[in-house]
């Protein structure tokens, strides 16, 4: 399955990856061959096979509704690029 250049750009945008125009041809080739590899699965006959939600044949364990976490804000915010008054700061987002 061959991706075109616009699809590569779109994928990069969705993933928030900045790629150079000069790199697009490479990505196009590599991503397309990955898709080809995965696409071999399409050849398998899946009639009557229920889609699998998880590879492990197990059921979700549940936890009791208890507050078990303490406030570790100081600790977590040491690795944040910018904080103020307890908030994480990001470039301004306005809808």
């Amino acid at each position, binding site marked *: 399955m061959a991706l075109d250049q616009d699809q590569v750009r*779109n994928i990069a*945008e*969705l993933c*928030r990856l900045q790629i150079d125009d000069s790199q697009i041809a490479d990505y196009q080739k590599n991503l397309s061959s990955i898709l080809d590899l995965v696409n071999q699965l399409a050849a398998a006959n899946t009639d009557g096979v229920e889609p699998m*939600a*998880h590879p*492990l044949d*197990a*059921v*979700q*364990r*549940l*936890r*009791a*509704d*208890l*507050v*078990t*976490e303490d*406030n*570790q*804000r100081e600790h*977590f*915010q040491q690795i944040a690029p*910018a904080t*103020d*008054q*307890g*908030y*994480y*700061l*990001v*470039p*301004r*987002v*306005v*809808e």
Partner: protein
Amino acid sequence: MEWEVVIGLEIHAQLATKSKIFSGASTQYGADANTQACAVDLGLPGVLPVFNEEALRMAVKFGLAIDAEIGKKSVFDRKNYFYPDLPKGYQTTQLHHPIVGIGHIDIELDNGETKRINVTRAHLEEDAGKSVHEGFEGMSGIDLNRAGTPLIEIVSEPEMRSAKEAAAYFRKMHSIVTYLGICDGDLSQGSMRCDCNVSLRPKGQQEFGTRTEIKNVNSFRNVERAIEAEIARQMDILEDGGRILQETRLYDADKNETRGMRSKEVANDYRYFPCPDLLPILIEDNYIEAVRETLPELPDAKRHRFVKDHGLSATDAAVLAADRELAHYFETAAKLVNDYKLAANWVQGDVSATLNRLEISIGQLPVSAEQLGRILLLIKDSTLNNGGAKEVFNALVALGEAGKADSSVEKVDALVDSMGLKQVSDTGAIEAIVAEVLANNPKLVEGYLATPVEKRGKAMGPFIGLTRKAAAGVNPQVVMEVLKQKLEELG
């Protein structure tokens, strides 16, 4: 052209769990920014979500309350998008296998009829954090306390045909989730939010018109107003031969208009896939039945019972049953006095007026249901007249306002005594007072006796007034009887 309005709602209700849907961080509202956002909520590497059993139980309870099929196998999916209030880069939600399938609720229309609205599905998901745009000098502040709060998103079929119906549906859902105790229903804190999908089509046309989605409307009133405004906007465009752009819009309550949100450069592509960190949830029939056992009486059932068993009017019953706390208050008082109509009048009268005046909820009213029941009982046995009852009620409210609330039943009796509100019903005592009044007002008596018999009823008025003035708190009914008898004796 005649247009038909088509409305579907997506309601997000925060589940009233103590901890988050996938972590042990608190969901308490109003904490300092980021003090309740743990490593799981922040999406730090190496963490694993573990599903909260209470969120599951609440979602199942909701499904049963709207008579829906419960998904015995439900699966969490990742909805991928980037936004600063979503630190993991995806929202954990349910796409193909929601916990709640097709169900329905009934809404009451203005003409008294009932309309059934089908619910397509309801699924579990996590809430995002909050962005604050003021006070950070060109930056936005992110508070992730809300991130990971459990939500159920309730999706209706596009079956509402007016803004009023949509508001009635939102109200009914609010009533149901608060009755179930699965959501605190506090709209001002964002516990319930609503996205409204609105489109128009020529009357009689099968095919739907292009719809717009109004995001995050957070009050009953605004649901109605936002939809009205959007209908008017779409109608103008269509009448002029234009076409509607499918888009997301925001409602500006100050201007009473909707406006388009800045459209993203790239169309949304959420790339859903099953969350590898979470296994499927399997539910057994006996679990569902055990949850069913815990269902309380729901608003519709309560409303019908108020009408059928206690003779309330449909309107009274609807008002009193809509809010669980109010219904409980009303019923507690009504049972004590064993007079539902009297209690209904008081709850919708003095009680509601006080709640409105003080802008408080029924739980904060300084007059307890037991106290109201006692007051009503004192009216019933003629210890208090209506005016006196109001005085006691207001005195209790005033105590509460002064920070000296006393919710004991004894306080009612103490107030009746200290305020001298007890009615004198003792016939002997009243006879003495009446005799004195008649003796002191010979001219009035003369006038009365000169009045033709058929007009004497009205002419008795001044005597009643004088008697009550002479002795405050006399039972007016007894006064009437005694007066009638005494005056008749005179001629």
